[in-house]
C-alpha cells in the first residue's frame, strides 16, 4: 500500500534534505524547530491492464457522450489530436500512453470503416516535435502508417490557411483553432494529465489554437487572477478555456476527450536514481553510497555530459486511470484522480518556501533549462502547485536551488535569448513587458519562420513563461536562487546566494530571523492542499 504524502517537522535528528539542483543535487540541513518538509505520496498503484482499461473507457464514456464505437462512421472525417513533447515529464518509457490510446482508437476507427484520419500533435505555440519524438509518442507503427502520407502533423498556429475562426466568448475572447480539426466530424483528444492544470477544454482550446486565440488567456491578468492555475475551479486560465470550449461546442465542433493520469514513479524503485524517490531518513547504506557516488560523478562531468545523461532518462511512471467521453465530465474525474496522487494536506503558511529545481520543465525536453525556464519552473509551476493558498505567506521569500546557467538552446529557444538580453535588461515587470514588448515578439517574422520550419518555440513563448511567474512575483517579497550564475540570477531580478545558509540569512532581512520554512520535496510531484 503506497504511503500518502505528508509533512515532516524538522528537528535535530532530521538528516540533510535532498534538493534537486539542475543536473545535480544538494543535501541541505534545514533549521530545526522552524522548518517543515512536504513529501509527495509514494507512487499509487497503476492500472493492471492499461490496454483493457483504455478499451473499456472508449466504449463506456462518461457524461453526455455516446460510446466511441457509435461515433465512428464510414466516410467521416476524424482528427486525433494528442499532447505534445511537454508531457509527461520526464518522458516515459515505451510504450507511451499516447501510443496505447491512439492504437486503440485506430483499431476502432478501422473496424468502423473510417478512412479519413489525421493525427495532430496539439502543440499550440510549442516547438514542433522531431520524428524521433513523434515516434516515441505515438509508436513506430502509427508513425509509419500516417507520417509518410502527411497524415501525422505538428499543429501550426501560424498557418493562415489551416486555422479557422470559430467565434467569440461572452467576454469577447476570440476562438480560432486548427481548421482540419474544427472541420472534422469528430476530434478525439488524447491527453496525459501529469498535473491538474492539464486537460479539459484546455486541451483543444489551447493545444490546437492560434496566437490570436491564446493571447486572451495567456496573459498577466489571467495569471494574477488564477489562485492557482493548478486548481481548475480557482483558475481564470481554466475559466477562459472553458468559455472557449463552450464556443467550440456551440459551433458544432465535437470532441471526444480521452484523459489519462499517471503515478509518481519518476525515478523507479531500483537503480541509483531510485534514491531520489525515498525519504532521507529511510536511505539505506547503499542509497547513501548511491547518492554520494552520483553527486561526485556528476560534479566531475562536463555540463554537456550531465545534461545528456539526465535528458536520456525515461521514467517508469505508469497509467493510473483513463476516462473518456464528454470533456467536462471526463475532466472532473481526471482531476480527482490526479489529486489522489498529488494532494498533500498542509496546515497554514510559512515565511519562507524552499525548493530544489530539477533539470526538466515542460519546455526543455531534449533541450536546455535556460534562466527563463528556471524562473518559470520555480515561480510558475512549483509555486502554483497548491490548492487553497500558497504554502508561503504573502510577502514571504522563495528560495530556489538551481545552477541557472546563462545558456540557451538556440534552435529551440531563439526568442528566449532576445527576451533575456533585451527585455529583462529593461524591466522584469510582467505588466510592462506585456504592454511594451509582447506584440513585436509575437509578430516577428524570423521567429515565425523558425517556429514553422524548424523546432523553435513561438516568438511570444518566453513572455508566457514570464507571465506564468506573475502570481508568484505579486505574492512574494523576495526570490533567491542558491548556486546560480550570479549574472543570470540578477538579470531575472532575483537575488543570488552561494549557499542555503546565505539565502536564509538574506531572507531574514525580509521576514525576520526566526522565520518559518516550508521545503517542497518535489519531484516527484506533489500539490500542497493548504488550509
Amino acid at each position, binding site marked *: 500500500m503506497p504511503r500518502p504524502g505528508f509533512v515532516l517537522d524538522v528537528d535535530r535528528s532530521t538528516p540533510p534534505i535532498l534538493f534537486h539542483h539542475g543536473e545535480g543535487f544538494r543535501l541541505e540541513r534545514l533549521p530545526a524547530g522552524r522548518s517543515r518538509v512536504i513529501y509527495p505520496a509514494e507512487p499509487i498503484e497503476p492500472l493492471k491492464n492499461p490496454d483493457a482499461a483504455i478499451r473499456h473507457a472508449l466504449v463506456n464514456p462518461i457524461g453526455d457522450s455516446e460510446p466511441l464505437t457509435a461515433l465512428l462512421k464510414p466516410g467521416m472525417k476524424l482528427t486525433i489530436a494528442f499532447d505534445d513533447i511537454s508531457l509527461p515529464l520526464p518522458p516515459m518509457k515505451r510504450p507511451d500512453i499516447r501510443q496505447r490510446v491512439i492504437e486503440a482508437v485506430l483499431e476502432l476507427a478501422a473496424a468502423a470503416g473510417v478512412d479519413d484520419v489525421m493525427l495532430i500533435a496539439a502543440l499550440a505555440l510549442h516547438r514542433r516535435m522531431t520524428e524521433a519524438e513523434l515516434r516515441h509518442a505515438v509508436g513506430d507503427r502509427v508513425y509509419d502508417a500516417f507520417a509518410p502520407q502527411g497524415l501525422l502533423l505538428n499543429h501550426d498556429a501560424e498557418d493562415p490557411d489551416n486555422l479557422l475562426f470559430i467565434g467569440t466568448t461572452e467576454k469577447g475572447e476570440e476562438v480560432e483553432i486548427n481548421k482540419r480539426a474544427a472541420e472534422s466530424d469528430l476530434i478525439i483528444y488524447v491527453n496525459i494529465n501529469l498535473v491538474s492544470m492539464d486537460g479539459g477544454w484546455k486541451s483543444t482550446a489551447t493545444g490546437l489554437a492560434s496566437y490570436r486565440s491564446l493571447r486572451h488567456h495567456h496573459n498577466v491578468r489571467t495569471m494574477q487572477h488564477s489562485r492557482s492555475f493548478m486548481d481548475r475551479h480557482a483558475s481564470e486560465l481554466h475559466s477562459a478555456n472553458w468559455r472557449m470550449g463552450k464556443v467550440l461546442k456551440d459551433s458544432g465542433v465535437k470532441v471526444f476527450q480521452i484523459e489519462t493520469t499517471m503515478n509518481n514513479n519518476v525515478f523507479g524503485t531500483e537503480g541509483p536514481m531510485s534514491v531520489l524517490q525515498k525519504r532521507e531518513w529511510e536511505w539505506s547504506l547503499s542509497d547513501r553510497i548511491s547518492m554520494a557516488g552520483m553527486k561526485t560523478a556528476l560534479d566531475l562531468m562536463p555540463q554537456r555530459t550531465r545534461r545528456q545523461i539526465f535528458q536520456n532518462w525515461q521514467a517508469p511512471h505508469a497509467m493510473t486511470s483513463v476516462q473518456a467521453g464528454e470533456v467536462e465530465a471526463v475532466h472532473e474525474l481526471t482531476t480527482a484522480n490526479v489529486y489522489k496522487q498529488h494532494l498533500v494536506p498542509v496546515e497554514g503558511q510559512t515565511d519562507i518556501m524552499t525548493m530544489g529545481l530539477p533539470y526538466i520543465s515542460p519546455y526543455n525536453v531534449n533541450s536546455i533549462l535556460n534562466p527563463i525556464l528556471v524562473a518559470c519552473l520555480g515561480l510558475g509551476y512549483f509555486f502554483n502547485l497548491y490548492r487553497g493558498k500558497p504554502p508561503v505567506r504573502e510577502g514571504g521569500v522563495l528560495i530556489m536551488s538551481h545552477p541557472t546557467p546563462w545558456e540557451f*538552446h*538556440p*534552435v*529551440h*529557444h*531563439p526568442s528566449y*535569448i*532576445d527576451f533575456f*538580453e*533585451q527585455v529583462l*535588461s529593461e524591466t522584469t515587470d510582467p505588466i510592462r513587458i506585456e504592454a511594451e514588448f509582447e506584440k*513585436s515578439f509575437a509578430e*516577428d*517574422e*524570423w521567429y515565425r*519562420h*523558425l517556429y514553422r520550419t*524548424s523546432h*523553435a518555440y513561438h516568438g511570444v513563448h518566453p513572455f508566457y513563461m514570464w507571465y506564468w511567474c506573475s502570481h508568484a512575483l505579486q505574492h512574494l517579497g523576495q526570490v533567491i536562487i542558491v548556486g546560480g550564475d550570479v549574472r543570470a540570477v540578477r538579470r531575472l531580478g532575483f537575488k543570488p546566494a552561494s549557499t542555503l545558509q546565505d539565502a536564509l540569512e538574506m531572507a531574514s532581512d525580509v521576514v525576520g530571523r526566526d522565520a518559518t520554512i516550508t521545503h517542497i520535496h518535489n519531484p516527484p510531484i506533489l500539490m500542497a492542499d493548504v488550509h
Partner: protein
Amino acid sequence: MKALRFERSIARFAAANLASRLSPGGGAKVGPLRLRDIDPPRLPGDDWVEVLPRLAGICGSDLATIDARSSRYFEPIVSFPFVPGHEVVADLPTPIGHLGAGRVVIEPVLGCVTRGIDPMCAACARGDLGNCERIAFGAIEPGLQSGFCCDTGGGWSTRMIAHVSQLHAVPETFSDEAAVMVEPTACAVHGALAADVAEGDLVVVLGSGALGLLTIAALRRFGRPCTIMAVAKHPTQHRLALELGADSVVLPHELTRAVRRASGSLALGDGDIIRLTGGADHVIDCVGSEESLTEALGVVRPKGRITMVGMPGQVSVDLTGLWQREITLAGAYAYGTETLPTGQRHRTFDLAFELVEAADLGRLVSATYPLSQFETAISHAAAAGARGAVRIAFDLRNEKERNRA
C-alpha cells in the same frame, strides 16, 4: 622643462609592443615614452606663442602609440622625438592676436596656416582642416597634430607652443575638465555629422569609451532624429550611454540579435545567427579594431554605411559582405568645418564647445595624474572602461616646474 617624450628607439618600441600584449598600457613602463627634462620648444614665428598646459587628456591614439600598436602609416607624418598630448587646455600667459591672456583649448591639427603655407591646400581652403595635404611640409617638421610633431611639443609637459590659429578661448563658465573634453568632442561631432544619418535611421555606435559616448551625445544634439543603439561592455559606460542619448545599450555579444530585432531583419541560421539579411542603417565604429570592423560589417544593412571614428590600424577583415551588400566604409578623422542638417556651416570646435556645455561633458574626466605618475596614468587609461572610468588626463596645474616661470 618637464615632459613625457616619445623617442625613436626600435628596441623600446619592440618592448612596448610585447608589454602591451601582456597588459594594455604596459608600453609605458618599457617603451619609448620617458619622463625627461628638456628644453622648451622654440617659437617658429611671430604668430606662435608659448602656452602652459593645465590638463591634457590621454586618448586612444596616444595609447596605441605608447603600446607600439599604431600603424606604420604614421611614420612620415610624425617627427621624433615628440611630446604627446593633443587634448589640451592651457594657460595663455600673454595676449596674441585677438586673444587675451587666459585659458585656451588647442585645436591641434597642424594644417597649412600653422605651417605658413600660402596658398593653402584645397582641403584647408574648404575648411576641412583634418584633410590638410601639407602636414609634412612647411615651416615646421612633419606632424599631423601638436603632440606628434617634434617642433611644437605637446600637452604632456609643462610648456608647449601653438599657432594663434590653433587657440580657442575658454569661457569662464567652463571648468578645466570641461575644456579638456572639447578636442575629443570635436572628433565625435565630426564623426557623427560625417555619417549623415537620415531621420528615423537605426544607428549603432560601437564602443562606449570616451569617443563612443561623445559620438552618442553629438548624434543626439546635432544629428537628425534617429534611433541610437550603443554597445557597451561595462556598467558605467552603459549608464552614461543612456544619459547621453542612446535609446538602448547592449553588451557586445548581444549586438547582432538586438540589431535584428530593432531593424526587423531576418537572419540566416537556425536560431543561432550566422548572418543578418538586413541590419542597421549606420554603424559608427568608435573602437577601430579588427573585431569592431568585423562586427560593423555583420550588423549594417545592404547599402548601409560604416563610419570609422576610432583609429584603426592594420586589420584583416573579410570584405565579401561589403562587396555583395554594397556597404559604404568611410573614415572620419579630426575636424574642420561641419554642415548641420539645417544647412548651416560651423567650425567643429564651436559645435564642440556648445556640446560640452550642454551635455556637461566635463564629468567624463574620471581621474587626473601628475606627470611623475605617468605609468599609473597610462595603465588607468588603458583599462578605463573596466575600472568605471572614461577619460584620464594629466594634471599639470601643480607641477612645480611649470609655476616657477
